[in-house]
C-alpha cells in the first residue's frame, strides 16, 4: 500500500489549499492563556512557519485545566517561553519566537508591520484596545477571541478595510467604564492592587473559539479574505447547540483610531539604536533645533514635592501606581508631576537613551520639526538575544548541566532577559552584567533580588553556593538600605 511521507498530505488534498503560504506566514499571538494555547496548538499542527508569542505572565496551577501546552512541572515558568518550546516539539517546522513582556512595551510596531495576521488571546479590555491601536498603525488584521464558561466570541478587525469597525469603535459605555476603573480620577494613575475580574472559562469554550480564530486566519493567509467579514463578531454558543450568530459592529464616527489611518502612508524609516538618545538621532537626521519626538504614551517624567524632594521617573503614566505618586520623603500623596507625550530639544529626556525611556526594539516613533516628519525604528540586539537563548536550548534539548537558565528583570519589571549562566559565576558579577545590559548607571545602588524567596542575594555567593535553581528569576531593585 502506498504511504505518504508528506506530513501535510491530508491538508494538501483540500481544494485551493496552499501549504507554502502557511509555511511562509508570519503571525503573532498575543496572550498565552487558554485561548493562546489552543490557537498555538492549531498553528503548529497546520505548519504555520513563523510565530511570535507575547505574554508577560507566568504559569499558575489553575492554568493547567485549560492549557494543552502546559505541564505541572512548568508552574512558575513564563508562559511565552513554555509555549514556544511545546510548539517546537509539536512541529519543528514552525519557528517560534517568545517575547516576555506586555505587548505595548515589548513588541515593537516595526515588527508588527511584518506580520500577516495577529491573534488577540487576551483577557482584558485595556490590552485589546492597545493591540487594536497597534494593529491599525501597522496595517495588520487581527482576530480577537474571547471566552466565558458557556460561549465564546471571535471578531475580525482589519485596518485594510477602513470603512469597517475596529475594536475601539465597538467599545460600549460598559467597556469604557471598566477601562477607567483601572485608572481612577483625578490623577489617572494605576489603581494599587488592581486585578482584572476573574472569568470562569473552560477548555471547551477555548477550543471552539480558538478553532474559529485560526480558521479565519487560514482563510486570510491563503485566500486573503475570510467568510467572517471585517468589523463583525461571531457568537459561538458552546453549552447549548444553537448555531453561530454574527453581528455587524458599527463604525464610530469619531473613532480616533480611524482618524489616524491617514498618517500611515509609506515613508522612509530611519533605523536607530536603542542606545541612542533622541538628540543624537535628531542631529543625525538633520532636523532643525526645534524638534519634537512624539512618544507612544503619556509619560511622567518627574515628581516634585513641596518638601523639596525631586524624583526622576520617566515611565509611561499608565504604569505608575497611585502609591508611587506618594513622596517617599514626606508622605505627601499630591506631589506635582511633570507629564507629557513628547520629548523636545529642550527637555532633559533628549539626552536619555531610548532604552531609558522604556522603549523596545523594533518600535516606531516620529520626529517633527518645523518642516519635516521623520519616522524612526529602534533596533537592538537585546530581544534577539532572548529569542536566541531559548532557541539554542531547544537545539540541544536539555540545559548544559554546568549552566542554568535564569531570568533577570530591570527595575521597572518591563524588560527582562533570559540567560544561561555558569553555576560558578558570582552573583556580584552577574549583578554588574545585568546592570550593564539594562544600561543602569554603575553609581546607582542596586540589589539583586531572588523573586522566589523575595530576598536580596549575597553578591559574594556563586549561583551554586546560593542554591539558585534552573528558571529562577531575579529582579534589580533600587537599594534603599545601603546594602
Amino acid at each position, binding site marked *: 500500500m502506498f504511504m505518504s511521507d508528506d506530513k501535510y498530505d491530508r491538508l494538501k488534498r483540500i481544494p485551493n489549499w496552499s501549504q507554502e503560504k502557511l509555511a511562509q506566514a508570519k503571525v503573532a499571538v498575543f496572550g498565552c*492563556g487558554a485561548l493562546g494555547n489552543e490557537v498555538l496548538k492549531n498553528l503548529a499542527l497546520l505548519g504555520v512557519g513563523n510565530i511570535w508569542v507575547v505574554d508577560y505572565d507566568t504559569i499558575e496551577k489553575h492554568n493547567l485545566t485549560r492549557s494543552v501546552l502546559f505541564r505541572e512541572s512548568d508552574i512558575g515558568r513564563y508562559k511565552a517561553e513554555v509555549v514556544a518550546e511545546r510548539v517546537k516539539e509539536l512541529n519543528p517546522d514552525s519557528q517560534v519566537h517568545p517575547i516576555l513582556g506586555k505587548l505595548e512595551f515589548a513588541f515593537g510596531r516595526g515588527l508588527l508591520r511584518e506580520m500577516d495576521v495577529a491573534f488577540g488571546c487576551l483577557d482584558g479590555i485595556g490590552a485589546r484596545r492597545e493591540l487594536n491601536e497597534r494593529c491599525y498603525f501597522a496595517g495588520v488584521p487581527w482576530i480577537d477571541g474571547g471566552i466565558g464558561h458557556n460561549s465564546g*466570541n471571535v471578531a475580525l478587525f482589519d485596518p485594510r478595510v477602513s470603512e469597517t469597525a475596529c475594536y475601539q469603535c465597538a467599545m*460600549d459605555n*460598559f467597556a469604557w467604564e471598566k477601562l477607567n476603573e483601572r485608572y481612577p480620577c483625578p490623577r489617572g494613575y494605576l489603581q494599587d492592587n488592581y486585578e482584572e475580574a476573574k472569568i470562569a472559562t473552560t477548555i471547551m469554550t477555548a477550543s471552539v473559539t480558538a478553532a474559529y480564530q485560526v480558521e479565519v486566519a487560514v482563510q486570510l493567509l491563503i485566500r486573503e479574505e475570510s467568510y467572517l467579514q471585517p468589523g463583525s463578531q461571531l*457568537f459561538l454558543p458552546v453549552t447549548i447547540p444553537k448555531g453561530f*450568530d454574527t453581528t455587524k459592529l458599527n463604525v464610530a464616527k469619531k473613532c480616533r483610531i480611524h482618524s489616524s489611518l491617514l498618517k500611515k502612508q509609506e515613508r522612509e524609516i530611519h533605523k536607530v539604536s536603542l542606545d541612542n538618545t533622541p538628540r543624537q538621532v535628531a542631529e543625525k537626521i538633520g532636523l532643525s533645533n526645534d524638534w519634537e519626538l512624539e512618544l507612544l504614551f503619556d509619560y511622567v517624567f518627574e515628581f516634585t514635592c513641596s518638601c523639596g524632594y525631586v524624583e526622576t521617573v520617566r515611565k509611561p503614566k499608565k504604569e505608575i501606581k497611585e502609591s508611587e505618586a506618594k513622596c517617599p520623603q514626606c508622605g505627601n500623596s499630591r506631589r506635582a508631576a511633570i507629564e507629557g507625550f513628547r520629548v523636545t530639544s529642550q527637555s532633559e529626556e533628549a539626552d536619555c537613551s531610548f532604552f531609558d525611556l522604556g522603549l523596545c526594539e523594533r518600535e516606531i516613533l516620529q520626529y517633527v520639526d518645523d518642516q519635516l516628519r521623520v519616522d524612526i525604528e529602534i533596533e537592538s540586539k537585546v530581544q534577539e538575544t532572548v529569542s536566541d537563548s531559548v532557541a539554542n536550548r531547544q537545539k540541544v534539548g536539555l540545559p548544559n548541566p554546568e549552566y542554568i537558565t535564569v531570568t533577570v528583570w530591570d527595575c521597572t519589571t518591563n524588560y527582562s532577559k533570559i540567560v544561561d549562566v555558569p553555576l560558578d559565576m558570582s552573583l556580584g558579577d552577574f549583578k554588574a552584567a545585568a546592570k550593564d545590559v539594562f544600561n543602569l548607571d554603575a553609581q546607582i545602588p542596586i540589589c539583586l533580588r531572588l523573586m522566589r524567596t523575595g530576598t536580596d542575594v549575597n553578591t559574594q555567593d556563586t549561583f551554586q553556593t546560593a542554591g539558585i535553581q534552573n528558571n529562577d528569576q531575579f529582579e534589580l531593585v533600587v537599594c534603599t538600605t545601603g546594602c
Partner: protein
Amino acid sequence: MSQEQYVKITIWDQNETRKKDVDVPLSMKMAAFKKASKVALKVDAALPCRLQLKRTGTDMNDEDTFQSAGIQNNDVFKLMTNNPGG
C-alpha cells in the same frame, strides 16, 4: 404636552432560552435598555454584552434612542455576551 410614544419589541438572551416582550418608550437609550435587559434575562451584570437587532444583524449603539435607531414595532433583539476571558 405630547404623550410619550412606545414601541413593542422582543428581547432574547443569547441561547434563546429566555425572552421578554416589552413596550419601550421611543426616547429610551440603548444603554439603559441593555442594562434593564440583563436584569430581565438574568444575565450576569458584570459581563459585557452586545445588543443585536435581528432585522439588520447590527449591534446597537449605546447613545442611540429607539427612535434615532429606527426601531419598529415587533422588532426582535438578542442580548449577546461579549466574553472577555482569554
